[in-house]
């Protein structure tokens, strides 16, 4: 169960930090604010998850968990590690990831572990806004002009296979399922695949046909892309200089 919560926290922390890079450079003021707000939400979710680990399961202090671990100890998936790229890349990643997050928390409403149920109740309302935001922009750009449609389609072709890294299983998954903490990644994946397929069709876009997602696995076991280490280095810069600094 600790692994499940830790990977959820790591995903939220890393995507939160990543997308905060849009602060100040968003293509529109509203988007600058939207990506900044969603990042803040995600870091809040990470904080709540690290707190559950700390308070209920004997894990370390949330700040230490976030700032004082080596790359190998992070269990985030490859999807969240990639640089923000251009707006089409970040938008499609946000669309694919938040749909998965929405369904994950929805499934966690049935968890046997009460702290996760309470958190899911809280977080679902917030993620709804993330999903709304992503859907609105996907709809608009897919139906904008030829260039916007082509760019969204090519970003989708690139990001869709990487998004399967979200559902990489962990060694103790069977126990998590048996204890009814979570129904498992396969169930989540099939709900997500159907939902994404429906939305993509509505937008008039196409799901890439042959997908090899195996190249993007490993994150849950500590094998990361080359992009994670520089991100962590930047994120933990203040902590590395002075672990007791208050800011």
């Amino acid at each position: 169960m600790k692994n499940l919560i830790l990977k959820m926290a790591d995903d939220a922390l890393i995507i939160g930090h990543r997308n905060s890079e849009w602060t100040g450079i968003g293509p529109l003021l509203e988007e600058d604010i939207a990506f900044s707000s969603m990042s803040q939400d995600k870091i809040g979710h990470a904080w709540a998850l690290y707190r559950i680990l700390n308070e209920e399961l004997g894990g370390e202090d949330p700040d230490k968990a976030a700032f004082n671990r080596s790359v190998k100890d992070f269990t985030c998936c490859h999807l969240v590690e990639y640089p923000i790229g251009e707006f089409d890349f970040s938008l499609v990643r946000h669309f694919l990831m938040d749909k998965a997050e929405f369904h994950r928390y929805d499934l966690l409403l049935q968890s046997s572990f009460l702290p996760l149920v309470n958190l899911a109740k809280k977080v679902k309302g917030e993620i709804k806004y993330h999903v709304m935001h992503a859907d609105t922009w996907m709809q608009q750009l897919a139906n904008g002009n030829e260039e916007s449609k082509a760019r969204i389609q090519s970003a989708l072709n690139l990001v869709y296979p990487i998004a399967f890294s979200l559902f990489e299983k962990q060694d103790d998954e069977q126990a998590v399922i048996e204890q009814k903490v979570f129904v498992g990644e396969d169930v989540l994946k099939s709900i997500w695949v159907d939902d994404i397929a429906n939305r993509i069709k509505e937008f008039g876009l196409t799901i890439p046909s042959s997908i090899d997602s195996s190249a993007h696995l490993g994150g849950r076991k500590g094998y990361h892309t080359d992009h994670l280490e520089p991100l962590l280095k930047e994120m933990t810069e203040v902590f590395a200089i002075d672990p007791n600094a208050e800011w």
Partner: protein
Amino acid sequence: MIIDTNKDEKIWLALNEVQDPEIPVLSLVDLGMISKVDSSNAHSVKVYMTPTFTGCPAINIMKTMIVLKLLEHGFENAVVIIDTENIWSTDKISELAKEKLKKFGIAAPNKKSCLVEMSDLKDVPCPHCGSNYTTLRSPFGSTLCRAMHYCNNCNQSFEQFKPI
């Protein structure tokens, strides 16, 4: 356990003086953020606070504000506990508080929580002129709890405390 109603009343009155740092016309009590108070221990007071948004950056400031306000009213050793069981939603904001919000220039959350759809963010009445001829600009605003709208009648931007 002896419940001293007089003591509880004094604590709630003190808490009613703690203003939200982002919306200074509302108290934490107005917003429905104080879920319970435990004064059963003679030497300390426990205040349970449920945050509006998980990532609200004002949580620590509000905790300090509560402790200082209670100290000012003679309650030493107050502790603020983050209540993760009582989930906050905009339904917890009192009607009086919604009026205060409007006067402050922020549109009140309209619909019940958990039923929020994109359409609920449309045609939000403008807090300045009351017109419903408004457009949602973004579901995100200057703080996590606000959305941005534009009034096509009085041509002004305004914010809304978004339903959650």
